C-alpha cells in the first residue's frame, strides 16, 4: 500500500520550504473551512501532533491551536502524539473516512505518545467532514503536478479494489 | 466530627465455593471466636452452587445466633434464569432473617421490609441511598469502588442510616453471565463440574508479563490484591460509618477480625497491624487505592494520606 519510489523520489530533491509551503497552504485551507475542529479538540488543540508517512522521507508537525505546521526531514521529531503509516492511510484518517477503532490500532498505522490527544483528533476529524480532493484542488503551486499524480494514484488504488478495505 | 459509637465489625458472605463441611466449620469458628457483630451468609455469586451449603445453613445460623451474632441472608448477585428469580422471591418472602440485597430483583420485591443493601448494588450518591432507605434499607454496604470523599458525603447526609464499608478482602470487581473460571479449564458454565471449587481463594489471572492482576471466582472477577483499610479506620469512624466489613478469604478470618478489633479499640497501631495482617494473609498484596481516589490496585501508605487532602 506504499507509494511507489517513482512518486517519492522527486520529494528528496524538492527543497523543504517548498513542500512546507504547499502543506501549510493546504492546512490553512482546511482549518479555515472547518472551524468546528477546534471546538471539538478542546484542550487537545494545543498538542503537538506528528504525522510520519512511512513512504515519504518527511515528518509533518501540526499544532492545531496555533495553526502551525512544520515539515521536517524524517527523524525523531519531538511531539506529544505521533502517528505513522502509509500516506494513503494518513490522508484517509485526515478525511475521517476510516473507522478509527479498527484502523487506528491496527498494525498498518502505529501510534505513540498521548493516546487521549490522538483519540480526540480522530473524533474531531470524523466529525468535520474534510474533503481533501476539494482542498487540494484549490491549491496551485510548484508541487501541483506532484500532488495531482499522488491524488490520481490514490484514487486508482482505491477504485481498483486492491486496497480491499476501501470497498 | 465526634461520634459516640465506634463502628462494629461485620463479616460478608463467602464469595468462593467452599465445600459444605469447610463452610460450616468456618462459621462455627466465627461464632465461637470472632469479634464480629453481623454475619452475612449464603451463596451470592452463582446459583448453581447453592446445594453445597444448604444442608449446613440451619446449623450455622443456630450456632451464630447462640453466640449473639446478627445473621443476615445474602441474595444472589445476578438473576437471569427463571429458577434464580424463584429463589430470590422465596428468600424475600420466607426469610426469617434480614436479607442483604445484591440485585435489583430483590430490591424491588423487598420494599417495605427492613433489609440491607450489599456492596454489589450501585450506590454512588446520597440521592440513591435516600431512595433505598425510603424503601426499607436500614444498612447499606457501599461499593468498594467509592472514594472516601463519596463515603463521607453519603454518610453525612443521612445520619439515620447505618453505612458499611468494605475494609478487608479481595474486591468483587465484575460479574458475568459467562464463567471465565470454567472456561479457563476447558469447560462451560452449564457443565462446569463445580470446577471453581478447586480454588477456594480464587484462581489467579496474571498478565502476559506475569504481573499479578485479578483472580477468577466462578462468574465473578475479583482483585488479586486484598483491600486492607486499616490506617483508614479512624477516619471511617469519624465519618459515622457504622459497620466495617471483612470479606472472607481462605485464611484465619478470626485472626483478621481480632486484629481489626484491636486497631479500632486503639490497642494496636495501624502500621504494625498491616505487618501482622500480611502474615495472616500472605497470599495477596494489600490495596486501598479506591479509598484514596486512585486506581483500586494502589497501596497508599498511611503517612502519605495527609497530603492528599482527604
Amino acid at each position, binding site marked *: 500500500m506504499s507509494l511507489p519510489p517513482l512518486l517519492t523520489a522527486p520529494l528528496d530533491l524538492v527543497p523543504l520550504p517548498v513542500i512546507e509551503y504547499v502543506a501549510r497552504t493546504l492546512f490553512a485551507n482546511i482549518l479555515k473551512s472547518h472551524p468546528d475542529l477546534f471546538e471539538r479538540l478542546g484542550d487537545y488543540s494545543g498538542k503537538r501532533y506528528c504525522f510520519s508517512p512511512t513512504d515519504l522521507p518527511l515528518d509533518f508537525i501540526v499544532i492545531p491551536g496555533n495553526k502551525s505546521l512544520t515539515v521536517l526531514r524524517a527523524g525523531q521529531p519531538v511531539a506529544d502524539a505521533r502517528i505513522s503509516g502509509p500516506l494513503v492511510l494518513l490522508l484517509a484518517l485526515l478525511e475521517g473516512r476510516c473507522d*478509527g477503532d479498527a484502523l487506528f490500532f491496527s498494525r498498518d498505522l*502505529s501510534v505513540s505518545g498521548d493516546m487521549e490527544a490522538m483519540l480526540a483528533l480522530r473524533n474531531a476529524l470524523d466529525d468535520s467532514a474534510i474533503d481533501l480532493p476539494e482542498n487540494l484542488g484549490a491549491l496551485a503551486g510548484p508541487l501541483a503536478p506532484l500532488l495531482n499524480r499522488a491524488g490520481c494514484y490514490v484514487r486508482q488504488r482505491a477504485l481498483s479494489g486492491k486496497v480491499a478495505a476501501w470497498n | 466530627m465526634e461520634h459516640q459509637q465506634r463502628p462494629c465489625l461485620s463479616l460478608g458472605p463467602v464469595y468462593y465455593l467452599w465445600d459444605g463441611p469447610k463452610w460450616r466449620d468456618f462459621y462455627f469458628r466465627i461464632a465461637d471466636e470472632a469479634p464480629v457483630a453481623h454475619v452475612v451468609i449464603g451463596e451470592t455469586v452463582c446459583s448453581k452452587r447453592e446445594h453445597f451449603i444448604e444442608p449446613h445453613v440451619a446449623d450455622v445460623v443456630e450456632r451464630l445466633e447462640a453466640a449473639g451474632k446478627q445473621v443476615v441472608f445474602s441474595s444472589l448477585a445476578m438473576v437471569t434464569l427463571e429458577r434464580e428469580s424463584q429463589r430470590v422471591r422465596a428468600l424475600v418472602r420466607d426469610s426469617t432473617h434480614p436479607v442483604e440485597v445484591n440485585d*435489583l430483583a430483590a430490591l424491588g420485591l423487598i420494599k417495605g421490609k427492613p433489609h440491607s443493601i450489599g456492596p454489589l448494588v450501585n450506590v*454512588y450518591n446520597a*440521592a440513591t441511598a435516600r431512595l433505598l432507605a425510603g424503601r426499607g434499607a436500614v444498612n447499606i454496604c457501599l461499593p468498594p469502588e467509592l472514594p472516601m470523599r463519596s463515603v463521607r458525603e453519603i454518610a453525612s447526609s443521612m445520619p439515620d442510616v447505618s453505612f458499611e464499608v468494605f475494609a478487608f478482602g479481595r474486591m468483587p470487581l465484575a460479574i458475568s453471565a459467562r464463567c471465565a473460571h470454567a*472456561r*479457563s479449564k476447558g469447560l462451560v458454565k452449564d457443565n462446569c463440574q463445580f470446577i471453581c471449587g478447586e480454588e477456594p481463594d480464587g484462581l489467579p489471572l496474571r498478565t502476559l508479563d506475569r*504481573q499479578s492482576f485479578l483472580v477468577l471466582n466462578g462468574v465473578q472477577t475479583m482483585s488479586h490484591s486484598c483491600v486492607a483499610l486499616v490506617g483508614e479506620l479512624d477516619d471511617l469512624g469519624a465519618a459515622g460509618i457504622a459497620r466495617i466489613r471483612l470479606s472472607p478469604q481462605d485464611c484465619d478470618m478470626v485472626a483478621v477480625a481480632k486484629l481489626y478489633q484491636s486497631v479500632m479499640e486503639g490497642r494496636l497501631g495501624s502500621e504494625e497491624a498491616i505487618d501482622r495482617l500480611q502474615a495472616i494473609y500472605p497470599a495477596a498484596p494489600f490495596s486501598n487505592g479506591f479509598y484514596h481516589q486512585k486506581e483500586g490496585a494502589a497501596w497508599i501508605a498511611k503517612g502519605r494520606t495527609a497530603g492528599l487532602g482527604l
Partner: protein
Amino acid sequence: MELICPAGTPSAFREAVDAGADAVYCGFRDETNARNFPGLNFSRDELAQSIQYARKHGVQTFVALNTFMRAGDEALWYRAADDAVRLGADAVILADFGLMAYVAENHPEQRLHVSVQASASNRDAIQFLVEAFNAKRVVLPRILTTQDIARLTRQLSCEVEVFAFGGLCVMAEGRCSLSSYATGKSPNMNGVCSPASHVKYREDGEEMVSELGGYTINRFGAGEASGYPTLCKGRFEIDGAETYAFEDPVSLDIMDHLDQLRDAGVSALKIEGRQRGKAYVAEVVSILKKALSAEPAARPALISRLRLMSEGQRTTSGAFEKRWR
C-alpha cells in the same frame, strides 16, 4: 421494531438520520454518559441542532445520561437532565436510581428509559424500575440469550429494547470496576472504560505490547492484528496457559432471530458504537434498516455483510467503510 442508532458526533447523528434510524441516541460532552471519550459527544447547542434535524425527518432523539452520579457532584447530572428535557429529548436513558428519582419527580412528563448500565436482567428488577420511576422502556443487558429476551418481554409491562449489533461487554454492564481497578478512572463515575489516558503501546523486540495503567493487556507478534487494550478483551496467563480469559466470540445471534424478537414484542433494536466513526454508523444503520423490512429469504445476504463488518473490528484490514470520493 424501531432501530435505535448511535451518534458520537453531530456528523454521525446526521448520517444515522439519513440512513434511516427511527431514533438516535447520544450524550453530552462530559462524565454524564458512558462514552466520555476525548473529542466525542455533544455540546448543548449541538444537541439542540441535532434534535431539530431529527424532528424535521421524523426521527426521535434519546439522550444517554447513563453514568452514576458522583457523590458531591450530583449537580452535573441534574443539570444535564434538565437540559436534555429543555432541549426536547424524546427520552432520557438513565442508570442511576438517584437520577431516575430526580427526573421522575422534576420532569414527570419526560419519557424515561432504563439504560443497559442499570443491569436490569429479570422481571422483578424491571418491574421495580417501572413502579418506582415510571420507566417506559428498558434496555436489556447483553448477557441475555434470545430465548431469555423473548421469555422476559412477554412478562413485562414496559417496552423492551435490545442490542442487535456492535461491541459486547463481557461483564454485566454497569457492574464492572475492572478498568478503575487498573486506572483509577471509573466507567460508572467517569464514563470511560479503559481510558486512552492510561493506554500505552510499546515495542518489545518483534512484539508490540499494549498496556492499560501499567498492566500488560496484550502482546502482538509481528504482523498480528493489534487491538485497543480494552481490559476484558485482553490476553492473560492462567495457570501457565496464555489465553483470552474473558472474551467469547462476538455473537450476532439476535440478527438471526428478528422474527422471534418481533413476535415476542420487542419494541426496538439498538446498535452499539457511539465511539465508532460516522462511516460505520451510516453503513450499519442502512444495512440493518434493510434487514428489518426484508423478506426472511433476503436477510442472510444482508446479515453476512454485517458479519464481515463485525469481524472487521478485529482484523487489521476491513477498516475503511467508504471509498475515496
